[in-house]
């Protein structure tokens, strides 16, 4: 309870104090962030495209070995990418700089199909955590086995189950991430659990499911990692007096174990969140779109019915902060002016998206850059 109170107090302090720092990063990260990046994006059926933010054009391509990718994660230096492909039965390891697949793993046999629903990578890239679900093919029926959380060692090619604590269930879709130092696993559910990567015991728990103050609803956050260990997202909670859902911006720093939030007002139809490289503007979308001044902690521009029907699922702010790239569904990238939210242009991506664009630093394309696996 003390921890909860401390969290609530820290949260409110973050909300009320205009001088509170909301996301400061190291100078090296700052420098990398302000340089125009490359969008790593997959289009149907097996192509990975490199889209240059400087020229708004595709500058490279690689082909996967086993078709459509479902999930993608990178090592912290973005030098190596790991993609679930092959109808969810394989993981392909991609050398981002050389633009080729260099390794793959598959656990399925003729009599037993093992499909992967999520993966997490150790910073070294040598060990892979997998949310796996197996189906045994019997002569007259299928046997659906329980979901498992596995660890695969790329050196020994050995797989073993991870004994997770009872609080964490190896659910259908993966929710695990490895901390930047590789010492912990983070599991995102209603709360965030910090688990030791050696003993697999819970080290810490960040409570989001309990109300910040009596009467309020739980903090429902959909966080996305912006820099190693730091997540941003739109949160929702229920105001007990107004009886209305409220929304705001949450920042989770899992390295420092800090949660900061600030409220923006009654609910808006936004779910995705993107942050400008200078950390001064936030963008919430996409049914409506709100532009948030992250220093003043308020909405400065709002456009209702920004997208209608099914919305896109990726928003990336350009390095100079002047353009907003919206994409992820269908075959187009829409470029908007961040000052007016007017559409500047529509770019054909080359095919329907299967991997939503992920912004990677230009240094990841240099073969001489840091290389581990």
């Amino acid at each position: 309870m003390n921890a909860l109170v401390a969290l609530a107090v820290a949260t409110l302090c973050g909300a009320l104090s205009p001088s509170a720092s909301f996301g400061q990063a190291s100078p090296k990260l700052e420098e990398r962030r302000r340089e125009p990046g490359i969008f790593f994006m997959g289009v149907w059926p097996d192509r990975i495209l490199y889209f240059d933010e400087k020229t708004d054009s595709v500058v490279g391509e690689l082909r996967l070995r086993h078709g459509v990718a479902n999930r993608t994660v990178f090592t912290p230096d973005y030098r190596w990418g790991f993609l679930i492909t092959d109808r969810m039965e394989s993981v392909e390891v991609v050398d981002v700089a050389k633009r080729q697949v260099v390794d793959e793993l598959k656990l399925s046999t003729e009599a037993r199909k093992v499909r992967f629903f999520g993966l997490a990578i150790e910073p070294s890239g040598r060990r892979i955590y997998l949310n796996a679900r197996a189906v045994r093919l019997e002569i007259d029926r299928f046997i659906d086995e329980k979901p498992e959380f596995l660890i695969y060692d790329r050196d020994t090619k050995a797989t073993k189950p991870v004994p997770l604590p009872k609080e964490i269930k190896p659910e259908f879709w993966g929710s695990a991430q490895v901390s930047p130092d590789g010492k912990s696993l983070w599991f995102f559910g209603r709360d965030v659990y910090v688990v030791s990567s050696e003993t697999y015991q819970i080290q810490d728990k960040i409570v989001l499911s309990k109300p910040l103050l009596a009467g309020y609803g739980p903090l429902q956050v959909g966080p996305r990692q912006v820099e190693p260990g730091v997540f941003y997202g739109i949160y929702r909670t229920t105001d007990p007096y107004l009886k209305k859902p409220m929304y705001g911006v949450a920042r989770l720093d899992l390295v420092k174990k800090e949660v900061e939030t600030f409220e923006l007002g009654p609910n808006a139809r936004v779910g995705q969140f993107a942050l400008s490289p200078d950390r001064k503007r936030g963008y919430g979308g996409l049914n409506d779109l709100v532009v948030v001044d992250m220093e003043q902690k308020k909405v400065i521009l709002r456009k209702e019915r920004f997208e209608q029907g099914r919305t896109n699922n990726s928003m990336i702010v350009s390095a100079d902060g002047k353009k907003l790239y919206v994409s992820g569904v269908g075959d187009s990238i829409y470029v908007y002016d961040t000052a007016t939210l007017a559409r500047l242009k529509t770019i054909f991506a080359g095919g329907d998206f299967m991997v939503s664009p992920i912004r990677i630093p230009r240094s990841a394309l240099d073969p001489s850059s840091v290389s581990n696996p």
Partner: protein
Amino acid sequence: MRHLKARNKKAEAVFDWLEDEDGDVAALQQSPPPPHYPAGCTTVFSPGWEVDSAGGTAGLCQPVERDLYDCYKTCYWPAQVPDYLNNHPDWAKKCASATQDWRKIDLVFP
């Protein structure tokens, strides 16, 4: 909690919240139940049939072909498309952009 009575607005709010947590009886117009649509891709034979998460069509892609590969690849949405994971992995191999190249999609005979 049966022995406690709320004496101010804040305490009433706490009671309300606890009742919500237990899933107390609510009027239908307050929180309508989610729509019940059949799970799985091929439980009904109705080509082109698709609903959004609210049971309507307002949340669907426009044009509807934009959504084709999400229905097909991940195979969790109740739309009438072939099964990618098991039976028809090459159904749309020649069609990179469904809105533009849909004529290249193969026919499937179940």
